[in-house]
């Protein structure tokens, strides 16, 4: 009998503990978001840092892919979405309340390759990239490639094109660029997170593409700049709209955004591939947070607005450490104005 009483007491005390710990948890403001995988490292860093500064605010983010993020936002199962490509007009029409785009950081795609005996950084013209990915240029010693690389001896090796097999923002940026520089690409293939590739092998994820490129002599693929930097992959320069061969790095990517900022539309839905400016890297892109303009829960609205203000301000300083290019000042100023349009 005594034992039973003691056991009951212990259970009651445990229950009491749960009640005590549950109370502050309920008072927390919790936000849920979902979307793009590409910015996941910086987003989780931001949400973590923001939680440290405001212990009562918890922002959860699931990196389920841009398409999934847009779907969940349209169904309002999350408070905000995130995408590597802007939403289409049709998708925006489906939304119950208008949805605003906020650029957060920048990313870029780089051409990576594996040519036996060649360690040099190759120069690629837009025509060469289009030709290779359309399957028209099939050898590494094709004049379209050798002309711009006079100091490198390129072998008569077959080019094996490698692309992403999974739908991804990386593919969106790459095909968006190819569509801009070639009408043939635009009409035959087009742009999207997945496309019907004229040639090549598909690798799953950046690591899949890298794996196939590294192992296949003569292979050429595209990966995210961050992935190439972190894994020390060799990658080439690309000729930009001003006619300069530019190597992708954080500066040249931010410069591309600066070049595009002058013509930035008010809804921020802009592609900055093939951007003007001598130092601009041409295969760059924003990645966006997608926020409903009208937020019904007032506390959530306030948290989101405060977070966005911090993100375009102090938050940007975390970007470079994680190899993301930060937003240019002109874009930040424009975004600060747009944040004021959120109603709650």
């Amino acid at each position, binding site marked *: 009998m005594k034992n039973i009483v003691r056991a009951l007491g212990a259970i009651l005390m445990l229950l009491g503990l749960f009640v005590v710990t549950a109370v502050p948890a309920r008072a927390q403001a919790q936000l849920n978001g979902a979307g793009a995988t590409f910015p996941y490292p910086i987003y989780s860093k931001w949400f973590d840092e923001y939680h440290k500064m405001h212990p009562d605010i918890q922002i959860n983010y699931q990196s*389920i*892919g*841009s*398409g*999934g993020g*847009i*779907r969940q936002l349209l169904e309002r199962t999350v408070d905000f979405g995130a995408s590597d490509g802007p939403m*289409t007009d*049709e*998708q925006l029409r489906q939304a119950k309340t208008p949805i605003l785009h906020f650029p957060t950081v920048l990313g870029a795609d780089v051409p990576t390759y594996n040519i036996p005996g060649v360690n040099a950084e190759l120069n690629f013209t837009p025509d060469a990239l289009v030709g290779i990915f359309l399957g028209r240029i099939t050898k590494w010693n094709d004049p379209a490639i050798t002309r711009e690389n006079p100091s490198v001896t390129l072998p008569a090796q*077959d080019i*094996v094109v490698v692309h992403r*097999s*999974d*739908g*991804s*923002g990386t593919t969106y940026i790459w095909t968006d660029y190819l569509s801009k520089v070639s009408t043939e690409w635009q009409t035959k*293939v*087009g*742009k*999207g*997170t*997945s*496309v*019907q*590739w004229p040639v*090549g*092998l*598909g*690798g*799953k994820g950046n690591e*899949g593409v890298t*794996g*196939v490129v590294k*192992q*296949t002599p003569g292979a050429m693929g595209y990966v995210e700049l961050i992935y190439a930097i972190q894994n020390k992959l060799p990658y080439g320069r690309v000729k930009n709209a001003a006619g300069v061969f530019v190597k992708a790095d954080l500066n040249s990517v931010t410069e591309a955004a600066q070049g595009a900022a002058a013509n930035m539309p008010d809804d921020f839905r802009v592609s900055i591939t093939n951007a003007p400016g001598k130092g601009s890297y041409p295969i760059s892109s924003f990645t966006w947070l997608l926020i409903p303009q009208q937020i019904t829960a007032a506390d959530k609205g306030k948290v989101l607005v405060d977070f966005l203000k911090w993100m375009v301000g102090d938050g940007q300083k975390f970007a470079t450490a994680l190899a993301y290019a930060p937003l240019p000042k002109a874009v930040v100023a424009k975004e600060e104005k747009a944040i004021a349009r959120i109603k709650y």
Partner: protein
Amino acid sequence: MPAGLGARFQPRFFEANYWISLTPMNEQIATQPPEIVALSAPPSLLSSSWTRRIRMGDLVARGITFLAALSVLVITVALAWELYKGSVPSIKEFGWKFITQKTWDPVFLSFGSITFLFGTLITSVIALLLAVPVGIGAAIFLAELAPRAISSALTFVIELLAAVPSVIYGLLGIFVLVPFMREHGGASLKAALGFLPIFSGPNYGVGVLTAGIVLAVMIVPFIISISREVLLAVPREQREASMALGATHWETTWHVAMVYARSGIFGSIFLALARALGETMAVTMVIGNTPQISASLFAPGYTMAAVIANEFTEATGDLYLSALVEIGLLLFVMTMIINALARLLIWSTVRKQGAAA
């Protein structure tokens, strides 16, 4: 039995073993305590409260097990219905063209699945061709020929293999098998048999053949593990009778034990096939993910499960999503047809066996 066998395979598995388990069940009944045998006596012979309690117990047990069985059916029907509902826009838009058309173009929204159907079938067939002889050979060795110590050690290793996650097989595939196929395996096949259309064209290392080999490695443990169990369950009397008639050890194994266990072994092969058809991760990492139909086994391909996994997360637009769901529906239907054929085959062999006996 290896871990992770899906619930949907269980009925078939048990049925395949039903014939084998008959004998031990009869023995059990003979040794059961007399009180339970008394149940079959008319109720008037027992006190009414006693029978009621037993009957209640029976009823509850029957109810619970019935619900368990029903849940499987409900899940299957709900799955089929949801898949159908999700694919309606795509079915309306493309009709039969969805099965016959080769194009898969998410940008211009034109979808056909024949290339994925082909890829799924061809990789599974390659896997079975490689895995069945190895699997059954190993099972015979482990069940009939190997010393007990070796047999149990090997069985442990095999069951370990069955539990390895598929992504690990995929990684091994991409880092070990793909270079091997490009430099040695595929290259020597090409040198010796390159005149055959199935070994023509460039050999990248990734492709249909490599995917089939990875799949074979993944399904072999299933075939070995289940076939071995089935062979071990062959009653001693059967073997002794065969030996008494002057058969050698091998003749007994091949003509008596194998025949007795045939339906169970078929069961193991179809379970393995079901796994091969649905395998996603390991295949997508080594197949090259190119939707095309090529005679060459070196050519890259694409499977149904792989395209769903690859494109679902980023798919926007109702028609695109619906086309992916319809591929899921087709995969479901294909698995169902293959299961039905498997049952037919098991049923016909069992009947023939019965007629012969």
